């Protein structure tokens, strides 16, 4: 199978499908546009499956590599490859795209073709980010993926969408522009190479490493997002349509975390050690403080958005423990958060489509009218608070284990936040789902239809699979994570 350019396919199939969907034109052809989008998304998912089945777990380094010259004048290459860290995200991304197309099936009635096309193109661009081994190729995908998201928020979003779209775009652009300068600096230092893997071996003085690390930190911290540059996320989530929130939470946030793994840690290992305390401090603030913030939210989407920030805090915390347990836990957490947060946003979307409100206060007693939905929502609310047997538990537990070895008090603080997680998730669940039927809106609710059930069932399957039997996922990561940590352990100062 590896004779086929699988990674190129995983990038360009959805993009091509997106343009095809765009060509269906006006809303008269909406059914065709939806159908084409679904076929495209499924096809795009199918081409990523051989990446999993054909992956060699024992092999260190990149697999399915494709290399071609792109802009010879600047030595920029079209260099793709995946290792055990990035491969899973390509699959997750392709999977979530199918979910997103389904999620918008009945809900989106305006500019259907453009809506679906934006998601498909975005999916391809994000696969490009995970697969790029050339710094500029990475950057190009990284920035280009802002365009579809900007449009998704701005065109199909809520009342305050324009503000949210601008905030999203400019915040992220701000981070990535400094990143671009850092890439060029590395280009000069490495005598004219944009190869990320070359940069991993490049010796750099501590001072320069710290500058590079800070430039990377700004770019990725905004994307993750880490406290205190997280403020764009609640706005973007609240205003985005359901599909937009799902992609944002499930995939887009992972790009920042992935950047830490691909750039910050291996390229500036000494600076990473030097400044680990700083990142850990920010992560702990995210985990604990943002947990409290989530507790007081009156808007369900905002609550889940803040919980995403807290969960991503676990991820960055795990990375900067520099232990296999911590890094793998963080990666598992990233994948698991992809399923769970996607599902949470979808659940809120299901209620919003019926009642047109996201306020917790407008609900109550939903279980009486939507029993099937309530059961599934329960599962995801539990998973979001880290219940054992769901994927949410595995990642957080591994990170906390890693933290115990690193420093007991950090572990203590992180673990205490699991209680916070349970508190805000279950309290919200209680207020929305249990109790008496609160008003006539709730009384008129219809339970989920087959399409919605299918989406939730697929996400539930993922959540439970990772929760009960995470080994297939962690096995894939072992070799690559160990290799990464080897790189990080060696000083680059000469």
């Amino acid at each position, binding site marked *: 199978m590896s004779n086929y350019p699988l990674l190129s396919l995983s990038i360009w199939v959805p993009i091509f499908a997106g343009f095809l969907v765009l060509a269906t034109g006006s809303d008269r052809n909406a059914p065709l546009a939806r159908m084409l989008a679904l076929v495209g998304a499924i096809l795009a998912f199918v081409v990523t499956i051989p990446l999993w089945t054909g992956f060699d777990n024992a092999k260190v380094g990149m697999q399915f590599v494709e290399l071609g010259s792109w802009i010879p004048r*600047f030595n920029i290459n079209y260099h793709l490859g995946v290792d055990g860290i990035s491969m899973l995200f390509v699959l997750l991304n392709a999977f979530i795209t199918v979910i997103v197309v389904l999620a918008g099936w009945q809900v989106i009635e305006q500019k259907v073709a453009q809506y679906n096309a934006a998601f498909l193109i975005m999916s391809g661009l994000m696969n490009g980010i995970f697969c790029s081994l050339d710094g500029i190729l990475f950057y190009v995908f990284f920035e280009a993926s802002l365009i579809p998201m900007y449009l998704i928020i701005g065109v199909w979003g809520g009342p305050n969408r324009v503000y949210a779209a601008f905030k999203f775009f400019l915040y992220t652009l701000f981070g990535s522009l*400094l990143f671009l*300068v850092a890439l060029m600096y590395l280009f000069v230092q490495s005598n004219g190479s944009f190869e990320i893997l070359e940069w991993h071996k490049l010796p750099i003085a501590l001072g320069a490493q710290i500058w590079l690390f800070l430039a990377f930190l700004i770019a990725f911290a905004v994307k993750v997002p880490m406290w205190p540059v997280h403020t764009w996320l609640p706005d973007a989530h609240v205003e985005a349509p359901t599909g937009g929130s799902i992609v944002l939470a499930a995939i887009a946030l992972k790009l920042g975390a992935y950047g830490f793994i691909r750039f910050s840690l291996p390229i500036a290992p000494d600076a990473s050690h030097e400044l680990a305390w700083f990142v850990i401090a920010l992560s702990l603030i995210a985990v604990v403080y943002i947990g409290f913030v989530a507790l007081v939210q009156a808007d369900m989407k905002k609550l889940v958005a803040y919980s995403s920030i807290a969960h991503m805090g676990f991820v960055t915390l795990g990375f900067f423990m520099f232990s296999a347990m911590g890094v793998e836990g963080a990666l598992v957490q990233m994948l698991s958060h992809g399923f769970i947060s996607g599902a949470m946003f979808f659940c809120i979307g299901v209620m919003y489509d019926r009642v047109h409100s996201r306020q917790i206060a407008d609900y109550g007693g939903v279980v009486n009218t939507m029993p099937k939905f309530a059961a599934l929502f329960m599962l995801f609310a539990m998973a979001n608070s880290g219940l054992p047997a769901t994927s949410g538990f595995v990642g957080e537990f591994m990170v906390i284990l890693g933290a115990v070895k690193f420093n007991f008090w950090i572990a203590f603080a992180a673990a205490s936040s699991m209680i916070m997680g349970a508190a805000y998730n279950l309290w919200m669940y209680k207020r929305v789902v249990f109790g008496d039927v609160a008003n006539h809106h709730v009384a008129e609710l219809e339970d989920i239809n087959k399409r919605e059930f299918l989406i939730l069932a697929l996400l539930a399957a993922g959540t439970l699979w990772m929760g009960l039997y995470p080994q297939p996922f962690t096995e894939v990561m072992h070799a690559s994570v160990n290799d990464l940590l080897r790189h990080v352990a060696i000083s680059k100062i000469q």
Partner: protein
Amino acid sequence: MFDNFVVPDLLPAAPELFLAAMACVLLLVDLLVKDQRRTVTFALTQLTLVGCFIIQFATSNGQIAYTFSNMFVDDLMADLLKLFLYMTVIMVLFYSRGYIIEREAMNKGEYYILALFATLGMMVMISANHFLTVYLGLELLSLSLYAMVAMNRDSVVSTEAAMKYFVLGALASGLLLYGMSMIYGATGTLEITGVAERIAMGGVNKTVLVFGLVFLVAGLAFKLGVVPFHMWIPDVYHGAPTAVTLFIGSAPKLAAFAITMRMLVNGLLALAVDWQAMLIILAVLSMAIGNLAAIAQTNLKRMLAYSAISHMGFMLLGIVSGVVGGRVDPNLVLNAYSSSMFYVVAYVLMSAGSFGMILLLARAGFESDNLEDFKGLNKRSPWFAGMMLMLMFSMAGIPFFVGFFAKFAVLQAVVISGYVWLAVVAVAFSLVGAFYYLRVVKLMYFDQPTDASPISAPMDTRILVSANALVVALLGLFPGDLVHLCTLALAQSL
């Protein structure tokens, strides 16, 4: 008496001679053409330009040829820039045709003939190897442009713009001439390559030389339209009929780049340290004021005028990073200047497309040059909204569009020369710039249309706008060849 008279080699100047002859023929032909049949003049003008293109292509042999007593040079840079110039002017005239036919005051053959003379002026500028040739070309261009701006003579705004342009332009020409006379005083020659030789030989009074340089740079800065010599740009762009704005905003940038190369690089490279210091200030100021002032504009032409200022500032960054620490390193110099050239070519393409969009939406009695006029364009015409989206993101420097690679090329040159701080300043202002381009996208996509009338532009304009925007996208995917061409062309002249 004529013993000493040698007929100069006319071949290197064949396109100029052909154009000059044709322009005169057209003046006569146009006398016999009635207003209704102005298409004849249009067609002949376009044929002339195509003829120039063919002659240029056929006579280009890759050698440097001097003629007219070394006052005129034909090298690869000249060939390439002129080919771009013909293409740009052909495109501009196609864009303007519909606009001109709809406006009685402008529907005269003069528009085309003045455009041809302006083109001739630019060709002379591009091929100048003598300060007086530079001046000759520049005046031919400027005088044609003054008349073109004032063509809509009943419009108060247009005549005011023309007046302003004329007065300030004359002042700038004066500065330029004064600078040239100083240089003549210091070196005893006006031949550009000769000046370089004299300086290299030594014994030149540096004070006088630098004094002249200051005036030269001021004159150039005016023609490029960079701060603080930018005052005319917003008024002229705004006041001139859109077809003329399109002309001013595109092709002359190529010529201005060429004379910068000829005078500062070919002639005064030895003074690079001095003029680089001046240009850095101009560049930073232009990016700052251009980008900040553009935010406040409500008129799209005015906004694009400020954007032009900032773009020219960005382009200068490439020119200032050629020489480091007074030592001329051929690789560094080539890298820097070819990046700037690539930037100019890319900018001309984007600028032409953006003004083309305004012309596309304009109709008799309606200029469509306010930002408001783009509201809800996605509802009126998704296709052209998509085209404008590409142009705007390209201008903002977002991949995958050529604007990104233009910025990239210049930035890498800046970083290679060690001006990391300058690169950081440049990206910071790019972020500011992104805001107002995003606002255009916001108006087109997020807002409801106020004007529901369908687009009435003729087919050729539609095709051309589409082609223009698609080329911007295509060059964004495959910028390699254009970058290579620019490098190749400059390699010979340096």
